[in-house]
């Protein structure tokens, strides 16, 4: 038994219970009227993008300095003490300036404990990778350092941000490299540098509010180190910093024009707890 809905409207309304004389596939001019695009979008300008990307460049510079110290240690020329000394003094000075220790005793205790245990364990760590060939070690360290840079916490959430993975990868890479050094004290020095550069430095950088000054000092330092190794490495370093700091942020800013987040009545409602 079918009772046709004989009352048909002359005008079209966006309802299902009232049929109109228009056919079922009629599209009203008000179609897609309620669509909203890019509601929560705040565009980033070039200056902010370039400035914020110095955080990534700083991390790259720190890793490069670490690698340079390792190379200098390996080759056995005396300049590693200079680089290492400068870096450590910088870190310590910056720490003292920013944290202004009231109670210096527990901190000193921690440092002494670290030195004692670390120096004691270094022979064990050195022999950990004895059976692995040097080329594999270098390849693994490169990958681990890239993982460290890739997963580092740069101030935003995301699928590939994990400070734990980042730190672990860096320390693992440092241990890999330290095992290829001849003398125990060199290995310990490298490990101490690794802890300073990858564990302490990010906190310090955070406390300093990511100043561009740190970026300039570290990048200049890394560049000088690279120059002392070879011109190829120095130019590669410069190119990568240029890309990361200038080209990629500008590409990002250019790509923002294609952002197309669509919102409308079909979206699942967001429930906020009262």
């Amino acid at each position: 038994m079918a009772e046709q809905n004989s009352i048909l409207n002359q005008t079209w309304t966006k309802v299902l219970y009232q049929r109109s004389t228009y056919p079922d596939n009629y599209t009203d001019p008000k179609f897609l009227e309620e669509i909203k695009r890019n509601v929560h979008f705040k565009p980033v300008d070039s200056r902010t993008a370039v400035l914020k990307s110095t955080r990534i460049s700083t991390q790259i510079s720190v890793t490069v300095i670490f690698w340079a110290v390792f190379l200098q240690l390996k080759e056995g020329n005396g300049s590693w003490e200079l680089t290492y000394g400068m870096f450590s003094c910088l870190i310590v000075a910056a720490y003292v300036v920013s944290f202004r220790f009231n109670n210096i005793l527990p901190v000193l205790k921690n440092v002494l404990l670290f030195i004692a245990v670390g120096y004691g364990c270094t022979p064990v760590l050195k022999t950990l990778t004895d059976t692995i060939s040097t080329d594999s070690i270098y390849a693994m360290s490169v990958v681990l350092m890239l993982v460290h840079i890739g997963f580092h916490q740069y101030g935003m959430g995301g699928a590939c941000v994990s400070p734990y993975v980042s730190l672990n990868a860096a320390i693992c890479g440092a241990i890999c490299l330290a095992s290829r050094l001849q003398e125990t004290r060199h290995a310990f020095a490298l490990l101490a540098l690794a802890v300073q550069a990858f564990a302490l430095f990010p906190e310090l950088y955070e406390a300093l509010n990511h100043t561009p000054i740190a970026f300039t000092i570290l990048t200049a330092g890394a560049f000088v180190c690279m120059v002392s190794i070879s011109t190829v490495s120095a130019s590669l370093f410069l190119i990568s910093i240029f890309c990361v700091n200038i080209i990629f942020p500008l590409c990002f800013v250019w790509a923002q024009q294609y952002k197309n987040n669509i919102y409308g009545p079909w979206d699942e409602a967001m429930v906020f707890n009262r």
Partner: protein
Amino acid sequence: MVSDFFYPNLGGVESHIFTLSQCLIKLGHKVLVITHSYGNRVGVRYMTNGLKVYYLPLKTMHDQVVLPTLFASLSIFRNIFIRECVEIVHGHSAFSTLAHEGILIARLLGLKAVFTDHSLNGFADVSAILTNKLLEITLSGINHCICVSHTGKENTVLRAKVPANYVSVIPNATDTTLFKPDVSKRDKNKITIVALSRLVYRKGIDLLASVIPIICKKYPKVHFLIGGDGPKRIVLEQVREKEALHERVSLLGALDQSEVHETLLQGHIFLNTSLTEAYCIAIVEAAACGLQVVSTKVGGIPEVLPPNMIRMAQPNVNAIVSALDDAIDSHLKGTCMSPSACHQFIHRTYNWLDIATRTQLVYDNVKKQPNSSVGKLLRRYRTCGPIAGPFFVLIFTICHILLQFFEWLYPRHLIDIAPDYNG
């Protein structure tokens, strides 16, 4: 009709396919359903009025849909389409991979294809992007598309980039001979609020759990009947324990289709707290049984019932509570629409024969469309995107070559035509 979702699975899409098929058979058409096997239920089965159902022995993956290989089901689909002299293939539900496969194979064989989209989907996450791309591929070769609400049409047009005049809006209907009001079944001393749905996050069970204690405190006569099961059942049980509302909140568990009507008859008010809904058949069934409806204002729900039959609220606890206040107040004062008037309205507006006639109109239009050659079809698929386009054109070319191979191996004139049940 091709879909993953059919009997013995029970749900909205399943009952839609079954009832639509029955109505089309009554209008004189030959209808058959193709779905995947459910456990031991494999092969050919006949349902009411000679509805032939093919349960294909295809492997299912998670969520009860088949693994979309396209090549595995090629020969069996071809065989079925030729045996049964199929002219139009109608796929249901964007989540059904079998429907996509059926439509794609049908188009390569030169048959006409129609697709019905029953749900709304987002755009933001990775799974949505992939599903929308697949839908775009399928719908770029389609002859016509049907959506169950105007919001659904907007959503489908945006997702799959279909031209808007290729999409018709034909709502779902309900069997009003089954869903009749019966005031004698209601308890006169209580105000019963019924909520029937799967207990999952999408259906707003968290909202429901927050609303129950507030309403129970405010109105001592109110009693809640909650049917359905799911992972969020524990939330409702916790609320019941915490507020000691054991006598006032009944959790009925998963209900059979037959029990749904019985439960609805006991209620005065129906509460729906979904967070997203293309077209809510539950509120139509409730209105057909004469209940007042209170619902969240999401998706296609504003289009379904007129304002005097439904009270809508924004999806937050305060708004729902105030809408329920209105509904309870109106019930106590007797100013709400009478159950028989509600039933009559639903009977006039959402009846299956009307829906089937409108669907038949779509089929007639589709039949009038000219046949397009495989080359033209592949050119349409090519426009789907710089990577997806050529990739799928390659896949479909291989399918086409395989179909020609099957044409040589099992020629068309040697395939027996299946006898008609009714003929």
